[in-house]
């Protein structure tokens, strides 16, 4: 009965269908040469084969996941800090720095981090993490600042220690806002991670960049389509997650 309802619920999730579609495409990619030969008849090698699309997607997801995690820890941590009594004075400074960080174009951050971190995944991770902090910080800050003062007062008054209050009251109440911030950060990062290939990180940007430099539109299409599908899947996934934590 309950399992049945759960299945029915799951079947209604677009995220699940999109993920299945993505898995199918990745599995079918090695056999898709005839299709792209049909679409791009002049192209002698119409399918990107330098790395498998599965490996590219995995590397892309890793970049996004690790950078979003780093950004989440820093962003939520900063939001917690500036909503404590001890950190209240730093609030303007933190939001100013975070806003400035966001005005840097990602390519510039990449270019600047290469001399420091060398080529590869490291500069890409640094740029992506930096980029994702602001939306997460904003979401978490809004969520924490929106905890009703009566709820805070009551929690303090009946004897919640500050740490317990943060874990049991404030963070759960801020969770929808934190998730919304995380959602924009992840979506932005899925797009931006493609640029990471320009500093040597493996990602779905690799076929796009090679396609652009070698005038091979088939590669651009392949990489671009998977990036877009990944972004839509993640977006629907977060939508489902947000619906699940939304108060009944």
């Amino acid at each position: 009965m309950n399992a049945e309802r759960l299945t029915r619920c799951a079947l209604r999730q677009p995220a699940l269908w999109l993920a299945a579609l993505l898995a199918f495409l990745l599995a079918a990619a090695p056999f898709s040469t005839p299709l792209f030969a049909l679409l791009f008849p002049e192209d002698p090698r119409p399918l990107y084969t330098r790395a498998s699309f599965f490996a590219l997607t995995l590397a892309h997801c890793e970049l996004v996941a690790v950078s979003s995690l780093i950004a989440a820890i820093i962003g939520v941590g900063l939001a917690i800090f500036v909503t404590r009594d001890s950190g209240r004075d730093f609030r303007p400074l933190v939001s100013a720095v975070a806003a400035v960080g966001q005005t840097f174009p990602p390519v510039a951050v990449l270019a600047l981090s290469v001399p420091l971190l060398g080529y590869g995944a490291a500069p890409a991770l640094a740029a992506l993490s930096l980029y994702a902090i602001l939306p997460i910080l904003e979401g978490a800050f809004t969520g924490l600042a929106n905890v009703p003062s009566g709820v805070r007062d009551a929690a303090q008054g009946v004897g919640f220690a500050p740490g317990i209050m943060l874990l049991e009251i404030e963070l759960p109440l801020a969770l929808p806002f934190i998730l919304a911030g995380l959602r924009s950060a992840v979506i932005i990062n899925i797009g931006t991670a493609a640029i990471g290939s320009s500093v040597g990180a493996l990602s779905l940007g690799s076929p796009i960049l090679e396609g652009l430099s070698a005038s091979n539109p088939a590669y651009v299409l392949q990489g671009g389509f998977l990036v877009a599908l990944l972004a839509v899947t993640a977006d629907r996934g977060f939508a489902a997650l947000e619906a699940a934590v939304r108060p009944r």
Partner: protein
Amino acid sequence: MIELDGVAKFFGPTVAVENVSLNVAAGDFCVLLGPSGCGKSTVLRMVNAMIAPDRGRIVIGGVDIATLDPIKLRRGVGYCIQSVGLFPHWTVERNIAAVPRLLGWSRPRIAARMAEVVAAMQIDKALLPRYPRELSGGQQQRIGVARALAADPDIILMDEPFAALDPISRAALQDEMRRLHEVSGKTFLFVTHDINEALRLATRIVVMNKGRVAQAGTPADILMRPVDEFVRGFLGRDELPLRLLDLVEIRDRIAPLSHRPSTTAIGGNATLRAALNMMLDHHVSRLAVADETGRIVGEIGLADIVAGGAPQ
């Protein structure tokens, strides 16, 4: 039970509380009464160790609270506020059980205590699995009071808990508090700006003005001998004599039965105000007075009410 000794609190240039000394005995229902901004909440929050006094001492049960762990102190004291502050992401049941859980009580102990509190506060069991936003204001505050009582504290602090409620819910909860005070013998420190609420609940009233205690005493003391113009004004200058009628029971003014007794009867434990009301209602100037069993034991006339004299 609760002693304040020369307590003061300043917020920058604002004097919130100045030289307040109080002694709330165990079992008192002490009401802090005064206009908005006179420092009532600050006093209450200092007693709950949420604000540290700048001067003076607060002693609870013989112990200076400055020497106690404030978190432990708060878990041992009931606290209830106007905005209720139920935790919106928790069910009613979990809200009520908040403090016992913080105290690490066992599940069976929490369950047993929950049953007691739910019964004492007459909470509909159907509400327990619901979320606070599904409840009316009156129901929410009933849960707020239940949360304050859950760990069975000896002291209960309440900051204008019923000020935002409709008159019917407010009256119902006031009755609940009276009953609770009578049966539990707990010590209440209750903040309000509403003189009627204070008279209805208090065994002791502390009138505050601009951070200071203007007058402290029993409701009768304060009504009959307001110390200054401020207190007189705050009690409602024009209605003072009428309010006094609230404090006196008919049996204290009862006269022997005359030869032509009134056909309208009233219980001896009703107040003089109720007697006056009934006289006006029935267009009579005398009422027969009945005891608990309904036997007529005497009568009361308009003159007996007007003649006055101090209630004891």
